[in-house]
């Protein structure tokens, strides 16, 4: 059997850091949502990775969890896009550096 655990878990780490960097570095609101989606997918991939580690079979439980979470993060992204539409209506830009009118 081919060793799949290490490459998969390394790609989980990579995806997670890419998504997190995307959230930190990018200034476009839609790209932020893409970063979120990448982070969710990293976590989903982690589930799939661990499900292959059961003895002798791939555990269907992890896959059903992944199905449910895909729907959930789809809902989050939908709400986010709706909010971006409203951001554009008020600010006439998607540059999140302009979303700084609320003072701390």
């Amino acid at each position, binding site marked *: 059997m081919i060793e799949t655990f290490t490459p998969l878990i390394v790609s989980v780490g990579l995806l*997670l850091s890419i*998504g*997190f960097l995307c*959230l930190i570095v990018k200034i476009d*609101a839609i790209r*932020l949502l893409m970063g*979120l989606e990448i*982070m*969710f997918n*990293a*976590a*989903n991939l*982690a*589930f799939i*990775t*661990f*499900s292959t*580690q*059961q003895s002798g079979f791939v*555990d269907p*439980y*992890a896959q059903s*969890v992944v199905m*449910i*979470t895909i729907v*959930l*993060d789809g*809902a*989050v992204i939908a*709400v*986010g896009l709706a*909010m*971006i539409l*409203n*951001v554009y209506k*008020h*600010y006439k830009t998607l540059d999140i550096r302009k*979303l700084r*009118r*609320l003072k*701390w």
Partner: protein
Amino acid sequence: MVMDILLSLPFPLPLFILLVGSVCIPLISILSDKIGTPRVRSYWTLLVASLSLVSIFVLYTQLMAAPNNILVFQIWGQLPPLGGCFEVDMLGLFMAFSISFLGLLVTIYTISYMKSEQRLTEFYSLLMLVMAGMLGVVFAGDMLTLFVFWEMMSITSYILVAFLKDTWRGIEAGFKYLIMSSMAGAFILLSMSLLYGFTGSLNFATLASTLKGAPLSPWFILLFSVIIVGFGVKSAIVPLHTWLPDAYSEAPDPISALLAGIATETALFALTRVLYLIFEPSVFMIPVAIFAIATMSLGNILALRQDDLKRLLAYSSIAQIGYMLIGVSTGLAYGLFGTFLHIFNHSLMKGMAFLAAGNITHQTGQRNINNMQGLIKMMPITTISLIIALLGLGGVPGTNGFISKFVLLSSAIGANLPILAVIGVINVAISMAYYLRVVMALLNDKGFKNSKIGEAPLLMVGITSLMAVLIIVLGIFPNPILGFASDASKSLLEGLKNYIGAVLG
């Protein structure tokens, strides 16, 4: 007959009622618009919210009759260690009671406050869904159920924060909230995958029986930090708190009351439950104590320089989360008792303070403290209730805030963490500085007198003064709520083996 069917549902009853109520409301409002009685949707919401509070008591009697005081609801006949399930114990019931109680008060308030709002159907539907999400989080019996309801609570609260979409303020706050909080959702999912990798299951009973007391490994430290980040963002632990002042100060006032009063605390509850499930208290004692110190100090210091009343209250709720973390870090039943008591008391005081701020905004359009000089002459009842709530938040004896703060600070000494108690007392002193600043402005004798500004509508004033009375009454006769909170804290520490027994046999 109907009762038997309701009691044999695969859901806890309050959750079922709120979900059905929320799904039915579009249909009901279409029908009520057809026959020309648009207020029916408000009464429907009121009915659903009060039924959910009543059904908490039904659930309580069910729980008392159950062996070992634990109820396990299998979702559509799936067997618990594999499928999802709900677990109802005293702790979940205590939190559910706090949620439904504040939810009912906020619903009554909303009926009067949101009278002129055009999109009331959506608002009520979301309001019931956010309450259902919170109830699902407190009743969840495995990580997947918890995550699903967590996301339900999160998504609805993003929309509710940005509900007034004609102003830029709510939209900006809601977008910040969405980005930070869904990033935390991804971290929770990652922590779930790690837990699944360790044990092959997500059920709380399996997790606790396999992982509790296991030796610390690098993977465990990774798991701990992922859990803290994941649950910490929504419960506003300090390095992760930045969304809170924006979101809670820009949301519509009843939503600020509901979210600041109980949603943050529900997140803190989820963090507490997961931490106590997986780790021994000695593992997380020191880190959580450090978070407690940082959270209460920063919340109080930043609140000192706020001029906006709602923003000040939002920072003060960060500080209150810090006090609650003291109880979590002690690992004692007494400390947790303080935490849960403070969750209930804080839901009353902070909810009431936000609702009173809503009264003031509704009548005067002002949120700046400097423009509220001498408000006692114009809105005496609202002002007096707001003052009671602020004194309660500051922990003045005679209010319920004093009792829970006393328990929390003394539990820190009992757990050999006297530094927490010392910093806690200093923080209470700092917090009085800004509460008294508001009180001083409200009572200012030389303030302007505007005869056009009168007291808020009867229903709104009624709710705020009822809550003020409750704050005083529970400060003087706290016994009923003390017993309830004490049972809740015991069930977190000792009820775990009952749950393991109920699921794994």
